[in-house]
């Protein structure tokens, strides 16, 4: 997500809801657990190391490249 301080973020999770979470994505969620290390800081330029300062979308080199190639 993006800058949390500026969004109308909903209430934090209730413990009761956690019950559902397991059922939630079903097989998918379980499978995803196995992936483990997918939380990846990608190679894109200027991807911040500290995620707490992330502001979501910004015009990185990677993004500029996408726009440039879309004009192709």
């Amino acid at each position: 997500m993006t800058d949390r301080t500026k969004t109308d973020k909903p209430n934090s999770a209730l413990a009761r809801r956690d019950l559902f979470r397991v059922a939630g994505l079903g097989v998918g969620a379980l499978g995803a657990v196995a992936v483990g290390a997918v939380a990846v800081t990608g190679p894109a330029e200027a991807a911040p190391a500290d995620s707490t300062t992330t502001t979501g979308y910004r015009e990185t080199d990677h993004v500029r490249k996408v726009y440039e190639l879309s004009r192709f």
Partner: protein
Amino acid sequence: MLIKKSAVAAGGRHLSRSLSQTVGAVTGATVDRRAFLRGSGLAAGGAALAATMPFGMVKKADAAGPATAAAGAPIKQLKTICTHCSVGCTVVAEVQNGVWIGQEPGFDSPINLGAHCAKGAAVREHAHGERRLRYPMKMVNGVWTRLSWDQAIQEVGDKLLEIRQKSGPDAVFWLGSAKHSNEQAYLFRKFAALWGTNNVDHQARICHSTTVAGVANVWGYGAMTNSYNDIQKSKALFFIGSNAAEAHPVSMLHILKAKEQNNAPLIVADPRFTRTAAKADEYIRFRPGTDVGLIWGILWHILENGWEDKDYIAKRVYGFDDIRAEVAKWTPAEVERVTGVPGSQLKRVARTLASNRPGTLVWCMGGTQHHIGNNNTRAYCVLQLALGNIGVSGGGTNIFRGHDNVQGATDFGVTSDSLPGYYGLADGAWKHWARVWELPYESVLARFASKELMEKTGIPVSRWYDGVLEAKENIDQPESLKAMVFWGHAPNSQVRLPEMKKAMEKLELLVVVDPYPTMTAVLSDRKDNFYLLPAATQFETYGSRTASNRSVQWGEKIIEPLFEAKTDHEIMYLFAKKFGIDKDLFKNIKVNGNEPLIEDITREWNRGMWSVGYTGQSPERMKLHMQHQATFDKTTLRAVGGPCDGEFFGLPWPCWGTPEMKHPGSANLYDTSLPVAEGGGAFRARFGVERNGVTLLAEGSYPEGSPIKDGYPEVTMAMLQKLGFDKDLTAEELAVIQKIGGEKIGAVSWTTDLSGGIQRVAVKNGLNPPGNAKARCVAWNFPDPVPIHREPLYTPRRDLVASYPTYKDTKSWRLPTLYKSIQDRDVSKEYPIILTSGRLVEYEGGGDETRSNPWLAELQQDMFVEMNPFDANNAGIKDGQMVWVEGAEKGRVKVKAMVTERVGRGVAFMPFHFGGWYQGQDLRSKYPKGADPIVLGEAANTATTYGYDSVTQMQETKTTLCRIAAV
């Protein structure tokens, strides 16, 4: 099921009815191909999956479980090429701790600019490999049993040696693959040679063999003349028998750019209203198998109005008057009678093509897979020649090939009629390659049953089962086939599956070497002498592959081979050792452990592939190109600055001379606007210098900067001597030439000089090594020198058989080949509907790999047949209903009916990627446990029939007859 249920809800309050309607389509409210397939499929597929498949599990056989792929480990970005079609899209893989964890767009590739189709965007799933063949298996009394690699090599090797001993080397068929890298393909052909047979072939036989032979016999080389990128410069786009939007989706990036930027009209000629046709300005629906008539019908208008390029024809085309004579017969009325296309439409098309030059012509299997496939491909070429569209940027015959390395595997001779580089099988060819291999010619000869069989074209893959089933005395080799080795080939891509099943059961030994069990594992009822050996994919090794545009791209290894899979070259090494041919096979190739060094193999073919210009592409140059992809222009493919400045991406062949010569490669073939040293060229002087007193050489046309302002034959030492250019040869080059030529030094040519000196000196002096000839409209060495129409073997138009009969029965490629006796049998009453086949975007080839990928499998869950509402209503068939499609040779398949106007009246279409069902029976239980593809279905080719091209033995899949009845 879920989607069904939510669909009911989807009818509610909506802001945009049109969009909700389209979403509703997914539920079956309106019919589209995917919607109609959901429903039950989802249930079955989903349940099967839940039981067997942990989602998202990036799993390796033994090493790192997920836990070890801990956050913080460095992530490497590796580059390779997509393993599906021939466009050659760059895949960027993110790998952490040996696990392929992510896929990013390959933006720097000038070919795909980051784009992918469904298959390319899903290749990472291959690293999950849940449905892969995990370890060697053999069938013991009908049960798949695991065995070790060592056991497998010993047992299979012993059995093969026993067959070789008993029945000769020609009793074994080595069926190679378009999935080999160039290095593996080259090694495979050499391996078969040292085994001692020409019974070696691969998929090219059944996809573009008629293109390769047809086109090469017009102007020299059997390949796409320009590139995907070059299409951006086209002013007109003519597609016939090609559904690029599904079969080569990323090519549409370039095609749609031409359409938008140049306002280039897109014309699609196809019996089926394809998704490519949906993007067209003009759609021509014609009867399957009447391509020659259609093309001559267009040319009739061009000639009638004098729209042909007379200057071009005079300078660069031979035999055009013979074409005029044939085309004169194809009046608009006759064209309409045969093809069903009105003359007024073709006049419009002719005018469009004539007034928008240069234009490109694209064809695929819709054109090639006919018993007159070679006539079709040559007719397409002639149309382009008439318009002056060949050898110019924006023009060309852009033949889109099917697999990621089918061009390379063809070039490297995984074919029963040639050694690598199209050298053929004659004495001189063997001597050339023996020199390259540094083996005495006699020792190679000794591996064969006889010199005659060494120089005799082998059995083509399209006919291997006839090589098993045909009586011994009818086959031109000592014994019928006793063993088949399927090394990367899906059986369901071939016609007449019931016959193939019989042959599989008759064989003494059946071996599959493949990442997946393939339908071979389940089609037959064999109980023993049946082995499955797990092979690695191209993601699990490295090396070069040749895209359709002749660019050679170097791919890196992304992950280690999964489970117990081994790379093809390692398996070849293990067998070679077993057969005692390893010393010869790897004489100049280093072997690390059991793995031959890929770069050494590349360098070996660099030393021998002079005839195609596969000599300048060293591993170092190819790696440099991949590293500096971003420096290449996305239209011209030429590098601007950087270390590859001036070179074309992937050094598309011909890339003349040695790597040190730094030839830039040739983006567009036969392009006289550039000097040969900069990628220019001319038509190849392949067929002599004159015929019946008429010159075959170009007149007044030559590549820029040529010292000879006219045509000339292919370059030989004698020619260099005559021109005084031999002085430019170095002492070392001359020594090599003398050694090869001996007494007859003048006969050493650009194709046989291993020093590269002749090519270097020729190119330096502005000469095109293959000469400068005219393109031939008349292939006098072919059954039909001028392309003519012949009715399909199974035709619904009996009234046309008398005017356009097929050939007489004959014997070719070691086997009896039937034509007339098939056509004479009139089955058009019992089987009134024309059956044709084609691709779906989600799957590829026989589909074992793609149907095992859940991300793709979910999108196409059921095999189906498209039929026109007219035919469906007549037969009382409803959309979505199960039907029997029975082919004219009684093979039948049980599939879902898809009632659609996509096909015309009297025509039915089936996709050919499905397999795992046979004549109504689900064979899932016969796969090795856990290696069954997610989606199974009837193979279209169970219902297809006999019919082979008169030159190449291409199968006739694109037009046969069938009947369709409700189950």
